[in-house]
């Protein structure tokens, strides 16, 4: 992993104890690090230049806060400035009062327009709309077929049109169809194209002039490099898009291109694509991307994910069980299942910052199969055994191992882990709650390991 910007800045300011103001010399040194960090995150070099100038102006002569080290202080300025740059208004989709609202997705080849169209339609559906899809990509082999398959999988209506229909015609017919059948959102998936391809850009302008989409969304790959500026500028110059979707954010690209695109077009990120599944489309949060660009992890996303996935009632129940000493293997299994609902353990770990207590956690490869094995072992026990592990003797262990396709050693190991977890929880109970009833509204951390 890269050394994070905050680590580097701490080093720069190591010797700055006791000075009351940030000196120019120190700031120059810090700016060098900031510049490299942003360039490594694929922020365009011109944007970086302007950005560092702004930071310099803000940092110069600032008084050193008692509570923050100079390094932290500069990180704070950088952070705030980046959030400010990425944030902004008009982040929401503008729905028209006279439906259907027409959305058109445009972008380079392979940026993820078709997948995003599908995800967006699912998102619309979840939010109470009746979306309809149409693909006008008549160029890439099987592109329209791809959207048809996606629509079917999601269960969203698609306007298919004739095999030889031209893009403009497809848009017009789909719009009429949507209007007639009471669909309030029409999503147009266009063919990927290079921003310098005159004739294909002309085609988009024609669609825009005729169909008058309410939102044109530029689809941009999070892995884009320096060239993001050129393609975004061209697409924006010719079509005037209202925002962009940042795709493939489930990879480990820093996503600095988003900053470049926002900076040169002034249009905000509206959605972020975060996975292979069709519900992996999230609203954009500037602060999270900023943390990622400068390498501070994404704790907020993790917390939100946890809140969504974990059943509060189940959490309270298991807490009550710990209190009354009734934490059984069944509960242990339930907890494992809850954690798995968060997504793969690796994606969870990737959200943690690569500093502080989590430093080495990210390097740890988590074996997903291990959890499957644990579940299999518990599943192979009788209900009685699950409720009382003390009765699991040698021959029962053998049976459980056979039933779950594991070995007796693995069963032993699990029982040992369970006993430890239980002991840990008992101790926690004694220190935390002192045996009293849990205060109302208190949430219990759900990690069984």
């Amino acid at each position, binding site marked *: 992993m890269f050394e994070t910007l905050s680590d580097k800045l701490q080093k720069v300011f190591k010797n700055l104890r006791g000075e009351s103001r940030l000196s120019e010399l120190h700031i120059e040194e810090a700016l060098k690090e900031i510049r490299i960090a942003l360039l490594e995150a694929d922020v365009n070099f011109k944007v970086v230049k302007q950005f560092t100038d702004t930071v310099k102006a803000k940092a110069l002569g600032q008084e050193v806060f008692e509570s923050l080290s100079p390094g932290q202080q500069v990180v704070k300025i950088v952070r705030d400035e980046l959030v400010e740059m990425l944030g902004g208004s008009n982040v929401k989709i503008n729905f028209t009062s006279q439906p259907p609202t027409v959305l058109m997705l445009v972008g380079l080849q392979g940026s993820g327009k078709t997948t995003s169209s599908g995800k967006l339609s699912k998102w619309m559906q979840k939010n109470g709309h009746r979306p309809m899809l149409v693909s006008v990509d008549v160029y890439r082999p099987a592109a329209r*077929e791809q959207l048809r*398959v996606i629509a079917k999988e999601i269960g969203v209506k698609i306007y298919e049109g004739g095999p030889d229909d031209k893009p403009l015609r497809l848009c017009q017919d789909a719009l009429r169809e949507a209007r007639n059948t009471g669909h309030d959102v029409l999503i147009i998936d266009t063919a990927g194209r290079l921003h310098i391809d005159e004739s294909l850009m002309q085609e988009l302008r024609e669609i825009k002039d005729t169909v008058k989409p309410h939102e044109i969304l530029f689809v941009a*790959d999070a892995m*884009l490099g320096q060239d993001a500026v050129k393609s975004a500028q061209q697409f924006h110059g010719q079509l005037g898009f209202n925002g962009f979707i940042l795709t493939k954010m489930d*990879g480990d690209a820093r996503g600095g291109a988003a900053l470049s695109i926002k900076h040169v077009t002034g249009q905000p990120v509206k959605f972020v694509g975060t996975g292979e599944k069709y519900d992996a489309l999230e609203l954009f949060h500037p602060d999270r991307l900023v943390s990622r660009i400068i390498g501070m992890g994404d704790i907020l996303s993790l917390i939100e994910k946890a809140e969504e996935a974990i059943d509060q009632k189940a959490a309270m129940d298991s807490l009550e069980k710990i209190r009354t000493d009734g934490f059984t293997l069944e509960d242990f299994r339930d907890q494992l299942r809850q954690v798995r609902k968060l997504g793969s353990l690796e994606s969870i770990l990737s959200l943690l910052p690569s500093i502080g207590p989590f430093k080495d956690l990210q390097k740890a490869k988590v074996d997903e199969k291990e959890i499957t094995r644990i579940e299999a072992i518990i599943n192979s026990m009788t209900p009685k055994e699950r409720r009382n592990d003390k009765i699991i003797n040698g021959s029962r262990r053998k049976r459980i191992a056979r039933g779950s396709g594991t070995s007796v050693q693995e069963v032993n190991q699990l029982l040992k882990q369970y006993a430890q977890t239980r002991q840990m929880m008992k101790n926690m109970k004694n220190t935390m709650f002192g045996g009293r009833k849990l205060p109302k509204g208190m949430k219990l951390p759900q990690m069984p390991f």
Partner: protein
Amino acid sequence: MEFITLFGPPKKKEPTVFEKIKEAVGKTKENFTEQLEELLQGRKEIDAGMLAEIEAIMIGADIGVNTTTEILASIRAQVSRQTLSDPTQLKNAIKEELRRILKVNYAPPRQVEEGNPFVLVMVGVNGVGKTTTIGKLANRFRKDGKSVMLCAADTFRAAATEQLEIWATRSDVPIVKQKAGADPSAVLFDALQSAKARKIDYVIVDTAGRLHTKNNLMAELEKMTRIAKREVPGAPHEVLLVMDATTGQNGLTQAKEFTKTAGVTGLVLTKLDGTAKGGVVTAIARDLKIPIRFVGVGEKMDDLIEFSADDFVDSLFAA
């Protein structure tokens, strides 16, 4: 049998990357000029400002901070030793440094045993142009009179098989496929059996795009290479990582991860007909010593040409 000879002796002179890009960019009204030339014109000596401008060009081409800093450090050293002082030499000095990095010693792929097909696996993240590149490669091999078979092992993405089928029809080659969601290794197994029986020269395997951070999908690739090796000795003979020229610094991580799990033997740089330069391959060549084999410069069947370090370096500095 060497890979290079597989294309046969060059029948007609291939257009260079430079010419192809020139042609593509020529569609716009922009002029195709040498940024370096412009920068250096009329200047008598190398100064700090000049080097800063060159740095901006290099960073702007996605060459990356590390590689750029290293090259400029070497240039600065030459300037201070006064072995380099003339701005006109500067251009060549920088290009020479880049060429040195890019000319990775190319090891021809392993020998193919008599009666077995040459197995070529295409890998990469989502949306880089794997399927299109396969279509172009198939066409290339066919033109050289070789028999080709495509293997539709992207069973995940919607309509991926249909897309590959269209390419198979275009270059008139057989394709082995199964239904969507099938085990990619099973499709590969079928293809290899069929290719052996039919004495096919080349099997080109399409795999699903995957982000290198997804361990289970990467493990799937590892399994596929295992199956290939088991069914055909020495296979896969070549594993090509397809990379989009618009890719930024993440390209280096991609190359590292795919090499670790799938044993990448070469790179294909696609979409060079846009304005992106694809400079990240310099960092890949420098750090991982992976040779760049082909570049994609358009949407037509024959828009795939062999990589030339000289042309590529020229195109890095073209505006």
